[in-house]
């Protein structure tokens, strides 16, 4: 089979577009999709200058998604003095898993000459995920604890590193799964939060950096500033998971491709099976789910927008921003302490 762009031998077929692409044209389309998303979401503001650059902290796990994101962002902005990349990795205390993926992170950041910070749950919280799974005081899945701890660490260190934005390697499959989960759970408030926290574009600016009028179309709503969180960005979210993995393979990137031994997100797994089944029968389903969901989420954000006073206070124990008296992380740490 030949590449539809140049006639060389194809390495992949994208059923949703009908295209067969060779190694080079496939890799180029991945890069193009990330760059287009960076542009469309207005991720580089006019206020970023060589003297006062934006700091982008990238959550780097060493898995294929974050490795590909780091590589493409690096290649895109290497010569651009308006953006500085910093990689942030987390050691959760998972024997035999995280050590290897951290080695991949080290290799990548050394190759690319990017500043790399590693933070561990052990040093931050005095816990290791391997023990948390054993103790399990709340009767929850491992990912539920780990997610709370991860958000806390990413948020705090992103702030400490002076991040203007926090980047994560969520791909199209990840986001389409989250979209369907929110839909199936009927959680419209969560859709609005999802939009405000990571999906909505940043406000556009004119050439002098002044804000331009908000789009008239309410489904194109821009994101509102949130003073309690570092804004998130997910420019890999137009690329299907398989293509991210294929990119890593073809670029020979040091990605660690092993599943976390504690992974057990049963519901997400069901949704993934459902989504891929639909994708097989109706290619393009993931793209259309996301396109529609983003519009719905924008409308939800608009509807909730007026009723969204900043109810965030500080956690009584650690001072982290939270809508509760004691944040969820401190709750979990207290429960683990009591075991």
């Amino acid at each position: 089979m030949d590449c539809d762009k140049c006639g060389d031998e194809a390495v992949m077929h994208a059923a949703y577009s009908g295209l067969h692409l060779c190694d080079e044209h496939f890799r180029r389309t991945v890069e193009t999709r990330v760059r287009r998303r960076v542009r469309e979401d207005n991720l580089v503001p006019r206020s970023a200058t060589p003297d006062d650059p934006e700091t982008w902290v990238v959550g780097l796990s060493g898995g294929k998604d974050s490795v590909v994101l780091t590589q493409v962002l690096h290649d895109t902005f290497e010569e651009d003095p308006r953006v500085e990349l910093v990689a942030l990795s987390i050691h959760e205390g998972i024997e035999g898993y995280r050590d290897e993926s951290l080695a991949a992170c080290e290799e990548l950041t050394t190759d690319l000459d990017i500043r790399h910070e590693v933070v561990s749950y052990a040093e931050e919280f005095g816990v290791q995920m391997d023990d948390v799974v054993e103790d399990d005081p709340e009767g929850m899945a491992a990912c539920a604890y780990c997610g709370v701890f991860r958000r806390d660490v990413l948020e705090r260190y992103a702030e400490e590193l002076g991040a203007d934005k926090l980047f994560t390697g969520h791909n199209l499959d990840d986001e389409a799964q989250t979209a369907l989960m929110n839909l199936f759970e009927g959680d419209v408030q969560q859709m609005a939060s999802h939009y405000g926290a990571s999906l909505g574009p940043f406000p556009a600016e004119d050439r002098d950096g002044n804000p331009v009028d908000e789009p008239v179309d309410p489904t194109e709503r821009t994101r509102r500033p949130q003073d309690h969180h570092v804004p998130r960005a997910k420019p890999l979210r137009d690329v299907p998971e398989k293509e991210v993995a294929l990119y890593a393979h073809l670029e020979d990137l040091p990605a660690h491709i092993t599943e976390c031994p504690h992974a057990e997100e049963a519901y997400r797994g069901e949704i993934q099976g459902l989504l891929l089944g639909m994708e097989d029968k109706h290619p393009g389903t993931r793209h259309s789910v996301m396109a529609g969901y983003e519009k719905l989420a924008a409308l939800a954000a608009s509807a909730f927008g007026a009723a969204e006073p900043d109810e965030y206070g500080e956690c009584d124990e650690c001072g982290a921003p939270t809508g509760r008296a004691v944040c969820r992380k401190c709750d979990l740490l207290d429960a683990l302490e009591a075991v």
Partner: protein
Amino acid sequence: MRVTVAVAGEDTREVEVEEGATYADLLDPLPYSTHEVSVLVDGRPVPEDAPVETEEVEVLRLVKGG
């Protein structure tokens, strides 16, 4: 025709397919969809809708690595 399908890091099996079958057809007896794996011929990924033109393929799992 008979094709040797080796799943990287897992088992190897013989898969019998019709003449003109595609690489996607080779995945049918496996518990993976075309969205979760890549099929490699001589170490090079191939489009899953291409007709099988080899007696040996490697299947690369692209599992989650969060």
